[in-house]
């Protein structure tokens, strides 16, 4: 697998890395999980830089780290292919398309949003986006309930009350959930030790 990387001149490697991540990022709508399938197609199937099993591991890592999945995956692939320089190139390739597009949009937004026709279209689309988000929430929530873990369900309800009713800072809620996770590790570890005795 790494043969392909070793045999390619470094400049060509970096250029391929940049153009691939730029292209993938440009045409990926709908967030992180989608981008990983595109990356697999490019880096595993076409360029043979990474094998399939490793790509799955990278995807798992990208999803479990903080930040955008697309950026995390670019960091991992770039690092794997060409070290720190590869990482920088892959990240720039990934963030440039959304940066360019949103810069253009935000320049026009003020003029755009005050146009009465555009404002009506945007208001209609807001109803659509609320539906899209709450549809995703229903699927994710059903997934949590299907785990049949009392702890997960209690955490979900408690976090909802904290954010929506009590207005607790989002960061504290995430930290609290992470602490519960650390507590769970400690309890599991103690249980395992007791079991060993």
């Amino acid at each position: 697998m790494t043969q392909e990387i070793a045999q390619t001149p470094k400049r060509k490697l970096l250029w391929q890395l940049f153009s691939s991540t730029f292209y993938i990022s440009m045409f990926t709508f709908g967030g992180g999980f989608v981008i990983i399938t595109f990356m697999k197609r490019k880096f595993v199937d076409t360029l043979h830089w990474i094998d399939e099993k490793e790509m799955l591991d990278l995807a798992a890592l990208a999803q479990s780290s903080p930040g955008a999945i697309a950026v995390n995956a670019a960091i991992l692939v770039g690092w794997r292919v060409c070290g720190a320089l590869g990482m920088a190139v892959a990240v720039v390739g990934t963030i440039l398309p959304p940066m360019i597009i949103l810069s253009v949009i935000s320049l026009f937004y003020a003029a755009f949003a005050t146009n009465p026709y555009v404002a009506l279209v945007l208001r209609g689309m807001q109803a659509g986006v609320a539906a899209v988000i709450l549809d995703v929430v229903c699927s994710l929530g059903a997934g949590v309930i299907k785990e049949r873990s009392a702890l997960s369900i209690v955490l979900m309800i408690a976090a909802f009350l904290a954010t929506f009713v009590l207005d607790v800072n989002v960061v504290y809620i995430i930290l609290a959930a992470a602490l519960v996770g650390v507590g769970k590790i400690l309890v599991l570890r103690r249980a395992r030790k007791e079991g060993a005795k």
Partner: protein
Amino acid sequence: MMTLLELFWSFLQVGLFSIGGGYAAMPLIQAQVVEQHPWLTMSEFTDLITIAEMTPGPIAINSATFVGIRIAGLGGAVVATFGCILPSLLIVSILAKIYYKYKGAKGLDTVLSCLRPAVVALIAGAGLSILGTVLFGESAVALQNVDLVGAGLFVAAFFALRKLKWNPILVMSLCGVAGLGINLLLHGLPA
């Protein structure tokens, strides 16, 4: 200069605490740019999420660029985006090293299993406040203030997504067109 630092610090927190991808960043962005800083109104934030949905790229990067450029120009966009990806750069490379050393991390899975339900609840909270903007706009939350067109479009869109499994971008576009059409029919051409 102060604004640039604030932008950097705000989006650093977005990058650091959004775990799980996709919509996980949304409640954090809302907290930073609507609640803790007067950078966007809830209605502008909802427009931003709509735009982010219709364009490629992660919501966090889209938001950092949009907010950064409106608050402090192109430099603001670059600073906010850099703040957003800096935690990833550090943490992902450390996790990758640990991962390749031990091949799998059992503890991480356990922590994530507790984070997931909380993140779902946070996304629900952000989604409901967006729904609130759709139903009530900037007016008080009361039954007589409900925007019936918005409510009708929301119910139709939810049905199309949930039961008919339509594509989200298609649903949002149709909502935009329908919103324009219905309002023109009801109120005539805007002045």
